[in-house]
Structure formats: structure tokens, C-alpha cells
């Protein structure tokens, strides 16, 4: 169990994307100056004719960290929840979750979903071990309630933060564009590939252990 944690990039997630791919997917485009969030300033490269440009060098590092974390959590059999309140990409996010074998929530977020789960869903509910936000804002351009709720319930979060989002509460923020369909498809594809890779690795390891030693490894 500790072997994957010792290596820096056990699942080789840095091979899944390159800076050029991010640029072609227009991940570096932010919103206008007026929409800029104060806390996003360190992640911005500059401002071209009033439009914020996100620093892709930083994005590459943050994205690599985020994908690595999701891969490790998926390797350990964690439940991953995809959240995106953008109606334009609701179907895309849901199909991504189905392909990974994980969960998605793209509808109206009821207040007690995470904080009042035993009452809403029945006792003994297992909460997600990781929440991935493909867009941290809800339809009224405010921060999604689930970010605060995840922090309350001690659930780490990975989120794509655009230049009008607040990245402070998100455990592994990924500064990038969350409005363009190309960028969203790229993120969905990357997360799908990392989770599938991690799960395949897990199955391989289990098979190896079951063949080499009759006792199952402690999880």
C-alpha cells in the first residue's frame, strides 16, 4: 500500500497532458478584469486587453498534483463525486462519471446533502472521499455550497478555478478556464483517464498479490 506513495508520479499522470494541449483547449483564457477574484491574482499570467490570461506553467503543476491525488484516492478505492452546476456540461460530467464508475451531481444542490446525509439518505451512508469540481460556481455566480460543506465534513476537494472563483477553500485548485466546451472536455477526459488508470493498476496489484501470496494485503 505504501509503494505507490513513495514514488513521485506513480501513475504517470504528467504524461496525460502537455502545455500545448492546454493552450489549444484554451484553458488559459480567463474572464474580464471586472470579474477577477482578488485571490486568483497569483495564478494569473497577465491581462491582455482587459481579459485575464491564466499562467499555464502554474496550471500544469497544479493539474499534475490534482490528477495525482485523484489517482491515489481511486487506487485506494475511494468514492469520487463530480460536481458541476453548469447546465451546458451537465450531460458531459454525468457521462464521464458513468465511464469512470464514480458519481456525479449536476443538479440543484440541496442544503443537507453532505452535512445531513444520514437523515436524508439513511443511516450508515458512506460520504465521498474526494469531490472534484469541474466548475466551482453555481448558476448565480456564487461559490458552490458544496465547497464549504466538503470542508466542514473533512472531505478534500479538487476544483477547476476560473479567474472569477475563490480558490482558498479548495484543497487542490487547478487554475483554468471552465467556460469553453473544449476545456471542459479536456478536463473530463483527463479525470476519466486517471481514474481508469488507477483502478486498472489496483486490479493488477490485487491479482499479483493473490497469485504471489494467498493472504490478501491490508487496505
Amino acid at each position, binding site marked *: 500500500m505504501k509503494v505507490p506513495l513513495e514514488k513521485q508520479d506513480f501513475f504517470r499522470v504528467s504524461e496525460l497532458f502537455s502545455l500545448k494541449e492546454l493552450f489549444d483547449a484554451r484553458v488559459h483564457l480567463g474572464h474580464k478584469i471586472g470579474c477577477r477574484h482578488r485571490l486568483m491574482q497569483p495564478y494569473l499570467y497577465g491581462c491582455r486587453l482587459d481579459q485575464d490570461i491564466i499562467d499555464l506553467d502554474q496550471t500544469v503543476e497544479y493539474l499534475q498534483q490534482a490528477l495525482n491525488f485523484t489517482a491515489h484516492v481511486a487506487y485506494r478505492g475511494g468514492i469520487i463525486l463530480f460536481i458541476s452546476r453548469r447546465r451546458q456540461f451537465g450531460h458531459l460530467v454525468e457521462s464521464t462519471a458513468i465511464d469512470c464508475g464514480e458519481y456525479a451531481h449536476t443538479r440543484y444542490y440541496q442544503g443537507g446533502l453532505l452535512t445531513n446525509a444520514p437523515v436524508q439518505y439513511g443511516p450508515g451512508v458512506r460520504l465521498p472521499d474526494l469531490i472534484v469540481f469541474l466548475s466551482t460556481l453555481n448558476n448565480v455566480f456564487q461559490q458552490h455550497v458544496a465547497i464549504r460543506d466538503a*470542508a466542514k465534513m473533512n472531505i478534500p476537494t479538487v476544483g477547476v478555478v476560473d479567474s472569477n472563483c475563490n480558490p482558498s477553500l479548495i484543497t487542490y485548485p487547478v487554475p483554468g478556464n471552465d467556460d469553453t466546451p473544449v476545456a471542459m472536455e479536456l478536463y473530463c477526459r483527463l479525470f476519466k483517464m486517471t481514474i481508469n488508470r488507477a483502478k486498472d493498476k489496483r486490479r493488477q496489484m490485487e491479482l499479483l498479490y493473490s497469485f504471489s501470496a494467498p493472504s490478501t494485503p491490508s487496505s
Partner: protein
Amino acid sequence: MAGSRLEKFGTVFNRVRDLMRSGVIQPTEKPLWYDVYQAFPPKRDPLQVKPRNRPSSQKRETVHDIFYQEDEVRAKFYEQYGAGPWPLDLTKSSYVSMCQRFVNKYTDLKRHSELDESALFEETGKALLSEGLVLRRKGASSVSAESKEPMLRLKLTDMLAEKQSVGVDSKETMDQTTQMETPPIDHSNSKTTG
């Protein structure tokens, strides 16, 4: 399972770590992500930052404007020629627009020759013309526009002349018949203005 719901103080990891240290969370109940977070911590602790709404806290580094040296050339190009003759096709990453070709030519000429800025501008225009690209100036009419406008003008002047002659004829007939009626054209004009 025990947990601490204070998202405003400390990070997720800090709270779980302290709960485990104090014994509230048993080692068997350790969350899945705890070891992963310990091995690969994020660059910045996810502490909640309080929103500072006071205008006095202005000590922040501003975001730099992105301007290139070729932007001066681009500005002059757009000023003189307007947007390119055909729209930009951004679907291909290797697409070179009219403006970009102009800028490339300009930089090439600047490197090789030592001309003045305005002279360089003319030179690039000529060079592009020689390659077969026609640049239409903004405001100045090109060949096809000129051919259309005189036609329009002729028609308008003809129509006006006809109308005036008709008006004069009718006026003469009116005067001949009744001297009290005012010319209809002036009457309508005064009605519209009034």
C-alpha cells in the same frame, strides 16, 4: 463518525490530524485520503481567507498588462486597413491572419533595411501587394465601391430632378388654376418639421 465542522479554522488535513492526535478518531477510522495528502501536500494550505472589503488594504501586486512590440504595428494596421478582408479562422492553431502576415513582413523588412516607420509601412503594403494580397483601406473606397456609388448618385439625382420638375409643373398648373393653394411640397415639409 466524529468530525470537526469548523471550515473557517485550519485546513481539512490539520483538523483530522489533530483529531487523530487527541484520540477522537481511531487509527482504524483514518480517512482514505490522509496518507495521500501527507505524501503529496498541496502547494498552498487550503485555509479560508477572510474577505477584506476595506479599501485601505490595497497592498497587492497588480496583474501586468500583456503587450508585445508587434502590437504597435498591429494597431497601425487595424487603424489604416480595418479588420482583414476575411474573418479570422481560430479553429486551426496554425492559422495566420492577414494582420499577422503583415506583422511578419514588417519585422522582416525592419531587420534587413533601415527605413523610417511610415516608409516601412508603405513598403510592407507594397510587398504584400506584390505577393497578390490586396489590402483595402478603411474609409477610402476601392474600385467596386466606386463603380456602385456613382450609379446610386445618378439615380438619386435623376429622381430628385424628376420630382422637382414634377413639382414645378404641378405648381405651374396649380398657380394657373388656383392662386390661393400653397405648393404641396412646402406644406408637407412644414407638417413634418412641425
